C-alpha cells in the first residue's frame, strides 16, 4: 500500500493540522510501505539549520516512522523549496526530483507538486523562476540564521494576510501544458497537489484516457491521503481523534 499527501502547510500556527500529521505518522501511515509527500509539507522553510522545537518534533516523528519501516519520499513545494539533504537525512526521508516517474509492477504514475504547470499567472511564474534558481537559493541559505528566522516569520505573516485580504484563488494547471506533460510521461496516471482543488480529472491525450488526481490540502480539522492499494486509488479522510 502506498500513500500520497501534499499541501499540509505545517507551521507552529497550525496546531490542529500538525496534530493530525503526527497521529497519521504514528498510526495510519505505518500500515503502508511507502509515503509520498508531494510538496508543501511546511508553510515555509528557510534552511535545514533552523532547529527550533517545532521542526525538531516533526523531524523526529518522520524519523520514527522511517525507522519503523515506512519509506518516506519528499518533493519540494513552492513554500518549502529550501528543504535540503540535511533535513532529509535527519528525517529518514528521500528527496525526489519534480516530476518523478513512479513505476510500479502493476501501474505507472507521474508525481509532481504541480506548480510548474500553472503557467497562466505571470507573477507566479516569475517568482518560481527566482526561488527555484540554485544560485538564488544558495545565496538565501547563506544568510545568517536570525535573518532567515525573521524572513520565515514575515512570509507566514504575509501569506496569512494575503489569504485574508484577497480570498486567494490559486491558478489552475494550464490545459495544453498538462496534456504535453502527460504525453512526455508516457500517459501515466498523474498525481499532484498545489492548487488546493481536490478533484479527479479525466484527460484524453492522443486518444488515450489518463486520470489526473489532485490531492487535497490539509486544514486544522481535517486532512486527506490518497491510497494506492495495488489496484485502485482511493481518497481517505483523516480526522482528529476524539478523546477524554
Amino acid at each position, binding site marked *: 500500500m502506498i500513500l500520497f499527501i501534499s499541501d499540509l502547510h505545517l507551521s507552529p500556527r497550525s496546531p490542529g493540522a500538525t496534530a493530525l500529521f503526527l497521529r497519521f505518522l504514528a*498510526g495510519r501511515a505505518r*500500515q503502508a510501505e511507502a509515503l509520498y509527500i508531494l510538496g508543501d509539507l511546511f508553510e515555509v522553510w528557510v534552511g535545514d539549520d533552523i532547529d527550533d522545537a517545532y521542526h525538531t518534533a516533526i523531524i523526529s516523528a518522520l524519523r520514527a516512522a522511517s525507522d519503523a519501516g515506512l519509506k518516506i519520499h519528499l518533493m519540494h513545494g513552492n513554500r518549502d523549496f529550501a528543504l535540503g539533504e540535511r533535513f532529509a537525512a535527519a528525517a529518514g526521508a528521500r528527496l525526489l526530483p519534480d516530476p518523478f516517474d513512479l513505476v510500479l509492477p502493476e501501474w505507472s504514475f507521474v508525481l509532481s507538486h504541480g506548480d510548474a504547470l500553472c503557467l497562466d499567472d505571470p507573477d507566479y511564474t516569475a517568482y518560481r523562476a527566482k526561488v527555484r534558481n540554485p544560485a538564488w537559493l544558495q545565496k538565501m541559505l547563506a544568510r545568517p540564521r536570525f535573518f532567515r528566522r525573521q524572513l520565515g516569520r514575515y512570509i507566514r505573516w504575509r501569506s496569512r494576510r494575503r489569504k485574508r485580504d484577497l480570498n486567494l484563488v490559486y491558478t489552475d494547471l494550464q490545459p495544453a501544458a498538462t496534456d504535453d506533460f502527460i504525453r512526455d510521461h508516457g500517459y501515466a496516471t498523474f498525481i499532484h497537489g498545489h492548487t488546493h482543488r481536490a478533484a479527479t480529472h479525466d484527460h484524453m491525450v492522443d486518444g488515450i484516457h489518463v486520470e489526473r488526481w489532485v490531492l487535497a490540502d490539509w486544514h*486544522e480539522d481535517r486532512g486527506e491521503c490518497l491510497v494506492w492499494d495495488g489496484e485502485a486509488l482511493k481518497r481517505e479522510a483523516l480526522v482528529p481523534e*476524539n478523546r477524554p
Partner: protein
Amino acid sequence: MIKLTTNHGVITLELNAEKAPKTVANFLAYVEAGHYDNTIFHRVIKNFMIQGGGFEPNMNQKPCSAPIENEAANGLKNKRGTVAMARTNDPHSATAQFFINTVDNDFLDFKSPSGQGWGYCVFGEVVEGLDVVDKIRAVKTGNKGFHQDVPVEDVIIEKAEIV
C-alpha cells in the same frame, strides 16, 4: 432518560439539561436520528472510562454533525458513573462521541477557559446499569488497526432511545 441497550445489558442515563443545555440538546438530536444504534464502545480503559458513539462494529467512523460549544464550566464533575463528551484537542469540538467515567477523573474537570484547562463536559449520569458499565470496563482489549484499547469482541450499543 436515555436507555442504551448494549450486548452486555441496559444502561440508563439521566441527562442534566439545566446544567448542560446545548450538550444535552446535541446528544438528544443524535439519539433521535438513530446515530448511536449499532455503534460500539471502541475505547475501553478499565480504570479510566469507556468511550463510544462514533464507530460502527468494523471500526468504520460515522459522519457527525457540527461540533458544539464546550459547557464544561457548568460545575459538574467527572465522577464515577457520569457521562461526558469526548472531543479533539480543540475544546469546542465535541460531536457524537461520549464516555462514561468508570472512576473519579478529577483531571478531566474544567479549570480555566483556555487550552488544556477547558476539560470535558459532564452532561449526565448513569442511574441504572452501572453493573453493566463495570462488565464492559472489564472486557479484554487490544489494538485494532491503529486504534488502541479496542475491545477484542465488539461491545455494541444495539439501540439508544429516549424513555
